[in-house]
């Protein structure tokens, strides 16, 4: 598997490479492992390694209705964000890749720009805008803020999917008698369905993890999981947070595996 590396590196190099990779992997996963272990401690204070394993902090998280409400808020906001971003990202990706105008390329850059900007700038701009619109603290405000930063991911995923197949398929549908909508419905949509779903999962994940916009735009009623986590972190560091964090990690990993499975399935299509 590393045949070519062997030839280039020699024995000493190979040992060095193995050590480097091991150190890297340790650096990458150690903090996460620590959190997971912490969540199962039976102590009140954070000590590592934990002495005995217990589920008391999970129970304590479950008992605090605020965590549950925040989780439910996050899921609702994430779902709405995913839907809105998929709609907006797909519309812009279609226009940019199929519109055939030169000025559409700069428009594409504008669509992806929110991905590159510090969220705090968008947040302090959106806050007064939401006030003006009377949306401050509402679900809509958070969803809109998250949609601004999640749409770029959907856009790039869907644009890639649109460029990934022969445009002649759509032209063929047109000559065969399909109008614009039916061409989209019967040709474009089946061809990009995988990309749409993956983009939607990405958008959900972005929203589920977003803190800054939630800090400025959410209210007490609409507070999200990261925001509540943040608030707790500012006050005290109890193992309850580790339990919640572990659950969030597990959920994110699940989403990622789902997206990856979809991507794989798409790659091996068409079926038998």
């Amino acid at each position, binding site marked *: 598997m590393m045949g070519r590396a062997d030839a280039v590196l020699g024995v000493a190099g190979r040992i060095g490479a193995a050590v480097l990779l091991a150190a890297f992997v340790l650096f990458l996963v150690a903090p996460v492992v620590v959190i997971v272990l912490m969540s199962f401690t039976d102590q009140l204070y954070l000590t590592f390694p934990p002495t005995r394993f217990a589920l008391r902090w999970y129970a304590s998280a479950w008992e605090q209705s605020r965590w549950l409400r925040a989780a439910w808020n996050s899921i609702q906001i994430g779902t709405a964000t995913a839907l809105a971003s998929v709609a907006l990202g797909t519309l812009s990706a279609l226009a940019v890749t199929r519109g055939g105008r030169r000025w559409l390329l700069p428009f594409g850059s504008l669509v992806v720009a929110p991905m590159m900007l510090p969220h705090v700038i968008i947040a302090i701009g959106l806050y007064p805008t939401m006030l003006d619109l009377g949306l401050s603290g509402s679900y809509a405000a958070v969803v809109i803020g998250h949609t601004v930063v999640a749409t770029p991911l959907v856009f790039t995923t869907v644009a890639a999917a649109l460029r990934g197949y022969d445009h002649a398929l759509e032209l063929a549908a047109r000559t*065969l008698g399909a109008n614009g909508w039916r061409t989209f419905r019967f040709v474009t949509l089946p061809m990009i369905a995988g990309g749409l779903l993956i983009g939607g999962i990405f958008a959900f994940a972005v929203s589920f993890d977003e803190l800054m916009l939630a800090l400025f735009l959410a209210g007490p009623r609409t507070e999200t999981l990261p925001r509540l986590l943040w608030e707790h972190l500012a006050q005290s560091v109890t193992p309850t947070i580790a339990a919640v964090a572990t659950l969030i990690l597990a959920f994110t990993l699940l989403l990622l595996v789902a997206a990856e499975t979809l991507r794989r399935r798409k790659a091996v299509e*068409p079926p038998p």
Partner: protein
Amino acid sequence: MTRGASVEFAGVSKQYGLVTALRPTSLVIAQGEFFAFLGPSGSGKSTLLGTVAGFIPPSEGRVLIEGSDVTAMPPHRRNIGMVFQNYALFPYLTVAQNIAFPLRMRRLPRGEIARRVDRALEMVRLGDFGGRMPAQLSGGQQQRVALARAAVYDPPLLLMDEPLGALDKTLREEMQEELRQFHRVVGATILYVTHDQQEAAAMADRMAIMNHGAVEQAGPPRDLYARPENSFVARFLGEANVLRVVAADPVAAGRLHLRTEEGPALLACGSPPAGIACIRPEDIAIAEAPIERENCFRGRIVDIVHVAGSIRYSVAIAANCTLSVRVRSDRRTAVLPMDAAVHVGWDAQDALVLPS
């Protein structure tokens, strides 16, 4: 059998910024004709076809189908069928569903759709393949599915952009035969784009030779070959010995005495202006003895190539003038030896005089 539709290009042109893809083109294609567009890569063939399909809006001019202007009409209302170079079959639909697609778009009743799909599958000899996915078919089979899909709703006009381009040579020749058969049965007008002159000549009733975004000449394949109007057409179709004319003197009615840059002076039929003279290799006779023709030159064989059914000699008749001569041959034909001193000759009417 459908009645084919006529197509008219009225001054159609296409600019992409500073690039001219198509210069103003006017052309009329009759009902039921098999019309081929032939030309080198980038000569504007696909652009011209695109203006009929509706994918490419012309910069100037109009396209008329059956006498009505369709320039402003979207493709799905033009009622045309199109076969693409890579077939453009929908990969997520079965063969039968692919063929049913245009019928579904036309909201035909389900029974009618099934009946027509079966008939179309029969026509392209894919009766048992309806349930397969396109990826499970060979190139030739995919090609036939594309054809069935484009023809199943009996469009009076079929567009084909290098439909055989992705097939190997033997399969291509087989499909040429099938397409001609298909044209006879279906009766639709077919606009056919190719850059293979043999394919065009074998299939088309008429064809247009395109170059640099313009139609150089249009007509039946034989006419184009026999009476090319310029050197591009002469050279593009078959082979031609081209001599550049430096002076042309009329000697009799319709006859010219030409002096050429390459050296030889010759007699030819035609009228000024005379820019070049073309002689087809198969119109030149070759023998060791002098030849009884209006033009006869002594020369030396510098190259011999055996092609199926014929021999091609290269004969040097002047310092920088070598003519290509093709002779029909079979097993009994005696082959002249390399370096042999020979005579080549042709009549005045065999030389074409063209303006440039």
